[in-house]
């Protein structure tokens, strides 16, 4: 909290009355426990940040709506959709990457990287995510644009809302809600395309043959998009989203935030009034109190009150203020990205300070680098087949009629390649033992066949005929690809009765 600002512009203070004990009724009727929403009518604005926001909106929504239709040829045994979450097949496809359920740690890594990226953004330039990238912001922006297109800008909407329900107002409202619902419906429609072959599903949806779950999810997402982007808007950020609370705890005086430079703006006043003050040799600020920054704000706040929970830092007030400043010939960026420490520096008449390299930015960046490179390493070095072994628990070993000892194992072989493969099974660590695979004839060369993109379990029996195995002998199963001669191994123990 910038103390200088608070001192200079004290709030209306009412001294608390003397406390007296009064066991009166709980509700005296004048304490509002629930506040009605103050409707926000954001005004349209043009400028640098508006252009950035339009670009981000087009790029992100473009990716979201079109990505399911991007094809990626993987060969005959796999889907050709570039990004696909295949729940029945338990696979996630992302261009050249295919993730199996047991590789869910990649998602853990992604979530860590995402969280750290959010923190890093916040440490560098505040709520970049909230202001530009968050789906809530992007869709709200789109819905606001539709509203403006149909019902007019801030003033027209305010006048219409204050007036009676004319035919025109009803018609415009109907068109607006129809368009909103269309966008919402497309949003839900694009969502389900990530979970099935997009062109097929589009056809099935159109002809009514898509699974019920697809229609259900389109319905759910149509409702949430329509409600959250059309009706809830800034209330999602203020009341529902946990990030503003976390963000407030993570920020510091070095972080750039959308800031009203009160050291330059105050005392505010009209052009005429500030001229008079200047002529009298009194201080006068650059803020002309035109309220443009308030009018364009999508959350309906006054940025001049300092950093606030509700502020998503979308930068539209910067554009609004800049256009006014340009028109009246004063320097722009009375509102701009600035940090608390800079304002203090300026008030002290010292150099501007911007410290990008700080312990927290270094920490976040290095966590991102470490987790990111670890994931990349695992991704690049992972095998396209593997084997795991589970020893039978009951019985741990079996005595055969001729006194030999046998152990049973379950071998689980993963073939991640999209073609069937054959592996030769061999055993190390127990010379003279006999290895059998259930379903394969004894004495065969134990060739294990696994289908494309599949896991297959084999029951393997190892029999020891030397009659004197130790209670536990370490053994290793090797699988060798018949064609490529790549090898994967799994270790376990061969158990025998104690003191036999």
């Amino acid at each position, binding site marked *: 909290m910038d103390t200088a600002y608070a001192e200079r512009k004290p709030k*209306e203070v009412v001294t608390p009355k003397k406390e007296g004990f009064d066991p009166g009724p709980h509700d005296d009727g004048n304490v509002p426990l629930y506040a*009605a929403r103050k409707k926000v009518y954001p005004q349209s604005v043009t400028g640098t940040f508006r252009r950035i926001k339009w670009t981000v909106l087009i790029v992100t929504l473009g990716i979201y709506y079109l990505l399911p239709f991007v094809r990626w040829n993987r060969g005959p045994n796999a889907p050709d959709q570039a990004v696909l979450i295949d729940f029945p097949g338990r696979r996630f496809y992302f261009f050249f990457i295919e993730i199996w359920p047991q590789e869910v740690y990649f998602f853990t890594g992604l979530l860590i990287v995402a969280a750290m990226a959010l923190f890093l953004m916040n440490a560098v330039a505040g709520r970049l995510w909230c202001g530009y990238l968050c789906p809530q912001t992007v869709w709200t922006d789109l819905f606001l644009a539709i509203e403006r297109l149909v019902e007019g800008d801030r003033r027209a909407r305010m006048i219409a809302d204050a007036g009676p329900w004319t035919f025109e107002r009803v018609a415009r409202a109907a068109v607006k809600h129809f368009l909103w619902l269309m966008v919402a419906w497309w949003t839900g429609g694009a969502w389900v395309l990530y979970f099935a072959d997009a062109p097929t599903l589009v056809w099935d949806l159109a002809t009514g043959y898509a699974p019920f779950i697809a229609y259900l999810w389109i319905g759910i997402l149509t409702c949430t998009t329509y409600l959250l982007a059309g009706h809830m808007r800034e209330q999602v950020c203020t009341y529902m989203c946990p990030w503003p609370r976390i963000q407030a705890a993570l920020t510091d005086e070095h972080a750039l935030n959308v800031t009203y430079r009160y050291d330059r703006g105050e005392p505010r006043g009209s052009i005429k009034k500030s001229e008079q003050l200047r002529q009298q040799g009194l201080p006068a600020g650059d803020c002309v109190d035109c309220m443009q920054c308030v009018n364009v704000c999508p959350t309906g706040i006054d940025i001049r009150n300092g950093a606030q929970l509700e502020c998503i830092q979308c930068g539209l007030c910067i554009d609004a203020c800049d256009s006014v400043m340009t028109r009246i010939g004063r320097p722009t960026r009375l509102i701009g990205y600035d940090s608390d420490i800079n304002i203090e520096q300026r008030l002290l008449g010292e150099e501007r300070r911007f410290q990008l390299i700080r312990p927290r930015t270094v920490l976040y960046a290095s966590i991102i680098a470490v987790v990111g490179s670890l994931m990349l390493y695992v991704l690049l070095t992972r095998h396209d087949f593997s084997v795991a072994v589970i020893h039978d628990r*009951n*019985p741990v070993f079996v005595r055969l009629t001729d006194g030999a000892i046998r152990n*049973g194992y379950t071998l689980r072989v993963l073939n991640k390649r999209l073609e069937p493969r054959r592996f030769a099974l061999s055993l190390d660590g127990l010379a003279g033992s006999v290895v059998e695979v259930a379903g394969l004839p004894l004495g065969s060369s134990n060739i294990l066949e696994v289908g494309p993109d599949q896991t297959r*379990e084999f*029951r393997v029996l190892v029999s020891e005929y030397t009659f004197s195995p130790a209670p536990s002998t370490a053994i290793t199963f090797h699988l060798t690809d018949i064609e490529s001669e790549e090898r994967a191994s799994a270790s376990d123990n061969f158990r025998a009765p104690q003191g036999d």
Partner: protein
Amino acid sequence: MARQQGNDIDALTGTETTGHVWDGIRELNTPLPRWWLWLFYVTIVWSIGYWIVYPAWPLVSSYTTGYFNWHSRQAIVEDLAALKAKRATMTDRIAQTPLEGILADSALLDFARAYGRAAFADNCAPCHGAGGGGVKGYPNLNDDDWLWGGKLEDIVQTIRHGIRAADNDTRQGSMPAFGRDKMMERGDILVVADYVRSLARLQVPANTDLAKGQKLFAENCVSCHGDNGKGNRELGAPDLTDQIWLYGSSKDTIIEGLMNGRGAVMPAWNQRLDDTTIKALTVYVHTLGGGEK
């Protein structure tokens, strides 16, 4: 809780207070949005919908069943039927394929083993152990020793009709109670017990009269266990020369068997399980390790 009249403004935050004071700490009034309250009312209305469509209120001897007559038992019956229908492509093939064919087809083998493992855990594990490891009196199904035969057709017969069970085709044959029914003298039983142990090359006291034991064995036991004690699968008579003992190889245990006989029962599962499940169980047991060709 002390209470103040009117709503003051907190000096530090500029926020209105509720007027509630606890030990001098005043509560700021940060009102919830109005729609939040509406949502709360909506959830109350929604809950009334539950009362109407689902079972909700207890009555004296029953309960309100709800508009849909929903019942958790009915739900699981439907789920099971759906599961059965989903498995039908594979279970139908299991039903139509002879056992040898299932063993030869890798897809059917994998399915049958998984199906059989689940059925085994539900039905067989209480006696034979979770992995078919067996306990005293209940054979280990992983080894290569079979009382009634370890070929596919032997195993399926045993599972279908049981052993000494209430079934017309059940496997019959039991160890008589030589001692209890006075078929053998007590002293003779002790000699036979030692002789039987010697058949499996187990240690016997040096002064044992093995010749007498052999004579007694020939008179009483060979009809079932065979001339050299190798057993007879037709009668479920175990091989006495190998290393596997259903009840144990100690002299006391063998004497116990000779005195009181043996005749454990396995249920006939065709009365409880459908034939597809029995076939899957057969394949599972056969591939545990002891299956014979």
